[in-house]
């Protein structure tokens, strides 16, 4: 999270940063990766919202996440809409358009690309529409790697 915390520190007065905790990419029932085992991380894929909240909490505390966090529901509605598994970065412009869609992680997880997109967005704050139709339900949707990483 180091690079992302740096971005949040640098741009936090002009850009809102949010961690969206999603479905486990490498749970113990799935494709397990050695890096997690080496770090003592053995996570069974949560099956309820509360289980996911508990895992998200353990992750946020271990990684010392300073950025505000929301947790996708067990129906994975947010991750599904954003194709977010295993990890991914986005920038949403004022008005609700997707200004930047990062490549999927882990190889495409690129905080530097996000920063570049932020610079572009901040240099042309009125370039995007303010009335973009909402994709998906307008009401609350109850709401999945490679880890929340930098």
């Amino acid at each position: 999270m180091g690079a992302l915390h740096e971005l949040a520190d640098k741009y936090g007065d002009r850009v809102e940063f949010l961690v969206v905790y999603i479905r486990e990419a490498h749970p113990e029932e799935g494709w397990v990766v050695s890096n997690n085992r080496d770090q003592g991380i053995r996570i069974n894929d949560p099956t309820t919202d509360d289980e996911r909240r508990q895992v998200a909490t353990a992750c946020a505390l271990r990684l010392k996440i300073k950025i505000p966090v929301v947790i996708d529901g067990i129906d994975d509605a947010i991750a599904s809409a954003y194709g977010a598994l295993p990890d991914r970065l986005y920038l949403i412009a004022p008005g609700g358009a997707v200004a930047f869609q990062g490549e999927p992680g882990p190889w495409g997880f690129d905080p530097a690309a996000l920063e570049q997109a932020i610079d572009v967005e901040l240099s042309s704050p009125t370039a995007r529409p303010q009335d973009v139709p909402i994709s998906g339900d307008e009401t609350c949707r109850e709401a999945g790697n490679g880890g929340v990483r930098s």
Partner: protein
Amino acid sequence: MSGKWLEKFPDDFNWRAVTPEDSPKTPEDVLSDLTMQRLGTPDVTEDGAAFDFERPLFDFSDGTERATGKTFRLLEAARSRPVALIFGSYT
């Protein structure tokens, strides 16, 4: 910029080198899993409309779990300034 996760494995990626022998599944299993395909394939597109969501907001910045009592709604937050979304999990 809308590539799918499962199409992004580098050609020289040696998954066996990073997978313990007791892993129940392999990347090939993941590749064939429709749910995983769905979760790695975005509906939203660059320059298209964001998918709105509303979820309880948590703050772990002081080293403890703290439900803020606030609800985050994406399009409300993005009304006045850009919002950077960082998707990920523990594993």
